[in-house]
């Protein structure tokens, strides 16, 4: 039999026919499409039992209750906790993104020590024992030399047990240099102290007010406890409450307000005082809550005559009169202050003017009014017994100059840290401990801050993430993230109640991290007497339980502890502190004709938490595009500079220069530029690093002469075609 071409062809045809009649081609076709439906590289999330675990979010000071959905042992979704006094089921964009932080690639996965040059990002994993040993040896060494004061710590907060443990650690060690990162709280505390004569903070009964006069406060941009404010804003809509937003730029808060009153940047206090002057002159005031009115009155009327204020602020005289009438005539008027999220302290004058307005309207300690209330004081530990070394250290002046001299009333001045370390301080720093803070990104004039950090010989970062400050550190001792740990969360962001939330571990620690409280306790113990003595607890959990005492059970059960009836720290406001000159923006008007303002948005984070990928995804393409950041410009201003939408431009300020893109926005005053705060990270992951410009590189601190706080609200700038 000879296999010729035809036979072969016949064989092939037979084969084809047989194949067509067999399942092979059809099943392969089906299976290959099914394969494409479940490509092995597309993850399949495993199923399992669903449970919800309640906790408290600590990503911002808002203190919302959260409910975390878990499938088996994986946390899959964070939701707002129903019935929680602050957020009642609502939740913000940052809170929703928490799992991306928990499971994200930027976690510091174990203690590490630096092996390359600083900032090179070369690390060596070490054990916790080794990390503690490195830290304690260093600290003991310095302390033994009598230089305990050259160790400083900077933290995001000073309330709650963990910050208290840091403070206690510093005290027992002998350093006066505990600092809190700057925020509106600084000015608020100072104002309460100055105006009401006692330590405390203010609470605002926003829910019950019926006329809101906001001097630049980002009511729906993250001011106060954000979700509470969102809810209040909706409540106002339902109740048809009048909301007036005084701001140079049409922020989201301004857009939500009943009325937007554009004002010249930096003149909010002038307007407040102008309104006060109208109220005083027309006798539309309540004198019961103020003292010192008679002496103050003449100055006020002289300096803040409507016409003059109108000129300063750019607000028409009749508008000022209308506002005064509306505010004074309302049943429960309430004025708010602190620009944007109140990320910077601001000047005492700014805040005092608004508090005075509240007092003149008679809303102090009233329903819908302003309440000066004491800080939570549930942490009652026995005093630290300081030894000679510690006492010597503690008697040294603070490196930032707070609490002494002309800034005697001021508690912390972290904004002056860079300056102090860069040669203007009383002594050089040897060690800096950084917890829940990211000064290398968040403090103004970032270049100077980084320079200062480069000068500090030893930096320890407790950050859970590879942030900018961790990149400058020598030793990383990563804390658990909030979803992995216990912590008390005293909430004070403008609440009229005293509230403590409890953060609880929702999942077991994902990496080789350790609770900061635990780290401090074990470090103190490792350092022996007298440090060990000040930290008698076996572990942090014991410490927490003992500290919270009778509140512990409530917290374990409800997740939150609330005290509603609080005795205010004062009921009469001493009219003072607003006679200072307004703080001007840095820079020469002639060389820098424009004004650059930072603006806050809830879609970008504040504080030490970097934006999660989900958040960045929501950011408009008029804020970042690719890696370029945008500056908002009024079309008129842009036209004058020959710039159009999306054009590349050079933005220059006395502090720095950046390449930005132009976003034309009608809602901003001509001559004013605005740029979002919270971008321009150099650390973290590829989802965040390099995107946009960090406005802190363009802006520097401006000292409020009456407090030393950073009162910068903007900086002079130029914008030219790149």
């Amino acid at each position, binding site marked *: 039999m000879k296999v010729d071409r035809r036979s072969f062809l016949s064989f092939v045809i037979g084969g084809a026919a047989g194949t067509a009649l067999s399942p092979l081609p059809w099943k392969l*076709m089906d299976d*290959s*499409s099914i394969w*494409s439906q479940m490509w092995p590289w597309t993850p399949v999330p495993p199923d399992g039992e669903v449970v919800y675990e309640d906790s408290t979010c600590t990503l911002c000071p808002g203190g919302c209750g959260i409910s975390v959905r878990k499938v088996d042992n994986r946390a899959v979704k964070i939701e707002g906790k129903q019935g929680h006094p602050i957020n009642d089921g609502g939740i913000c964009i940052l809170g929703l993104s928490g799992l991306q932080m928990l499971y994200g690639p930027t976690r510091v996965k174990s203690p590490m020590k630096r092996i390359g040059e600083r900032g090179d990002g070369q690390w060596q994993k070490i054990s916790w024992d080794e990390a503690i040993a490195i830290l304690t040896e260093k600290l003991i060494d310095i302390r033994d030399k009598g230089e305990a004061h050259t160790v400083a710590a900077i933290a995001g907060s000073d309330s709650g047990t963990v910050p208290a443990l840091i403070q206690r650690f510093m005290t027992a060690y002998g350093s006066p240099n505990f600092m809190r990162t700057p925020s509106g709280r600084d000015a608020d505390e100072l104002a309460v102290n100055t105006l009401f004569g006692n330590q405390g903070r203010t609470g605002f009964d926003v829910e019950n007010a019926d006329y809101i006069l906001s001097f630049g406060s980002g009511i729906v941009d993250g001011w106060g406890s954000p979700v509470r404010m969102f809810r209040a804003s909706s409540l106002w809509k339902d109740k048809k409450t009048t909301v007036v937003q005084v701001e140079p730029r049409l922020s989201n808060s301004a857009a939500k307000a009943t009325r937007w009153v554009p004002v010249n940047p930096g003149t909010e206090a002038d307007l407040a005082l102008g309104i006060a002057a109208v109220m005083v002159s027309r006798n539309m005031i309540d004198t019961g809550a103020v003292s010192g009115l008679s002496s103050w009155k003449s100055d006020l009327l002289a300096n803040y005559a409507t016409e003059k204020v109108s000129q300063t602020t750019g607000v028409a005289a009749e508008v000022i009169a209308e506002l005064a009438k509306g505010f004074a005539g309302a049943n429960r008027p309430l004025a708010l202050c602190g620009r944007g999220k109140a990320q910077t302290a601001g000047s005492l004058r700014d805040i005092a003017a608004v508090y005075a307005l509240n007092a003149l309207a008679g809303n102090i300690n009233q329903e819908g009014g302003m309440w000066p209330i004491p800080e939570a004081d549930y942490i009652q530990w026995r005093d630290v017994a300081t030894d000679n070394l510690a006492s010597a250290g503690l008697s040294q002046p603070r490196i930032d100059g707070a609490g002494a001299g002309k800034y005697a009333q001021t508690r912390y001045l972290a904004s002056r840290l860079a300056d102090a370390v860069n040669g203007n301080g009383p002594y050089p720093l040897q060690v800096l401990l950084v917890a829940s803070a990211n000064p290398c990104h968040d403090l103004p004039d970032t270049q100077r801050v980084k320079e200062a950090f480069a000068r500090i010989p030893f930096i320890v970062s407790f950050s859970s993430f590879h942030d900018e400050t961790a990149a400058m550190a020598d030793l990383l001792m990563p804390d658990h993230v909030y979803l992995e740990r216990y912590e008390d969360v005293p909430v004070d962001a403008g609440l009229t109640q005293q509230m403590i939330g409890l953060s609880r571990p929702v999942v077991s620690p994902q990496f080789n991290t350790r609770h900061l409280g635990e780290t401090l306790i074990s470090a103190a113990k490792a350092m022996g007497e007298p440090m060990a003595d000040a930290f008698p607890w076996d572990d942090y959990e014991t410490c927490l339980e003992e500290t919270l005492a009778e509140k512990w059970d409530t917290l374990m059960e409800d997740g939150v502890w609330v005290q509603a009836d609080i005795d205010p720290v004062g009921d009469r406001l001493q009219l003072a502190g607003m006679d200072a000159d307004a703080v001007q923006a840095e820079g020469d008007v002639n060389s820098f004709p424009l004004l650059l303002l930072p603006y806050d948005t809830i879609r970008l984070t504040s504080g030490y938490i970097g934006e999660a990928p989900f958040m960045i995804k929501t950011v408009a393409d008029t804020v970042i595009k690719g890696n370029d950041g945008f500056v908002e410009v009024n079309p008129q201003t842009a036209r004058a500079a020959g710039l159009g939408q999306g054009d590349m431009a050079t933005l220059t300020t006395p502090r720095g220069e950046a390449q930005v893109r132009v976003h034309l926005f009608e809602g901003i005053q001509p001559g004013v530029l605005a740029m979002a705060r919270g971008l321009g990270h150099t650390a973290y992951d590829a989802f965040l690093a390099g995107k946009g410009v960090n406005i802190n590189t363009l802006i520097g601190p401006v000292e409020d002469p009456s407090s030393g706080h950073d009162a910068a609200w903007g900086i002079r700038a130029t914008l030219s075609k790149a």
Partner: protein
Amino acid sequence: MDSALIPKGVKRCPMWQFLLGLGIMGAVLAWGVYAMLLCWFKGLNQTNMNDYYGFALWIWADLAVIAVGGGAFFSGLLKYIIGKDELKHIINYAVLIGFICYSSALLILAIDIGQPLRGWFIFWHANVHSMLTEVAFCLSCYFAVLTIEYIPLILENRQLDKVPFFHNLSHNMHETMAIFAATGAFLSFFHQGSLGGVAGVLFGRPFAFREGLLIWPWTFFLFTWSAAAYGPSFTLLITWITEKVTRKKLVKDNVVDLLAKISGWMIFTYIIVKMADTSRWAFITAPGLGQTLADFYTGNDFYGYWILFAEIILGGVVPAVILISPPLRRKPAWRVTAFILGVMGVSLNRWVMVLQVMAVPIMPFDNWALYIPSWQEVATTILPVAYGVILIMISYRYLPIFPQEVELNPIQDESPAAVEAETESTPDLQPAKA
């Protein structure tokens, strides 16, 4: 060296020239294939398409080649059904061009879909309410028809024809060609139409949406009509280019003239209806949906009124007038100008009906979406052109595509084979009577 394969009685360029040509086009083809593979293996992120511009450059190419490929079905219709017998001298080429156009269209669709392995769902899980289903069905069926029409042509290759089976097969297929052609015309009518329907049914897109007859929007009929009208122009244009490239006359003037005249009248009638449609849309349909012509043609950097003018006047009225006027039509320069304008016009129409539809903002707060194709898209779009040129080169070289070639280009010198072929190949191509 391949003389045994070359049809008798004709002269072809030397092998090296042929191979050089193949090589150049092959390189372009390879570039396109590389881009195609990138799209398949890495996904459509290789393109610059986006969620607004879900259909882009190559879908336009797809629609355009289908439109101009309409020459095949319409010539077939004229030849086999209407009985315009002169057209037998160009029908082969029309079929070949159609075959190229439709195979390209299918290839483009296979690249265009995000999940090529599941492409067959369109048949298996067909949604009969979708115009695209109709397109897919008719397109693939009509491609089968074109294949059937092309096969006998291949079988007429000198060597293949020697195989009795092939010879008989080719013969039988010629015999039954009228049935195939009729089926093809039917299919073609529907899929050209349903391509128009694709845009016309989009009631969420006032720019594309048209009222119509029963389930068919007016664009359904306009697309069929325009394909029938412009397709022959494209066939003639390609024929003219082929003649220029080969430096031979391949089709007699009377054939060209007839088809050009038909094309001209078709374009003429089409463009009148098109203008009526455009007016109704501009003055009634779109304003009824709150949009005006200015919304569609202003406010962006590309789509201006020029495109409307270019499509309807330059690409419609002008070629129609040239082609229906005998003196103009008979002047090659005018005629070819008309072909070019016509092909441009119909291509522009397909562009507008696919891409401008995507670009026009609908929500008042939305923006125009413009895009620039990536090189992968450009390469993939050029791929069919290279493929088409190669197929034409090979087919022209080895198959008796042009029945009148021998007659029009008698070989003066020697070669008894050539003489023999003259008697042979002409009757060879005579199809069965309808």
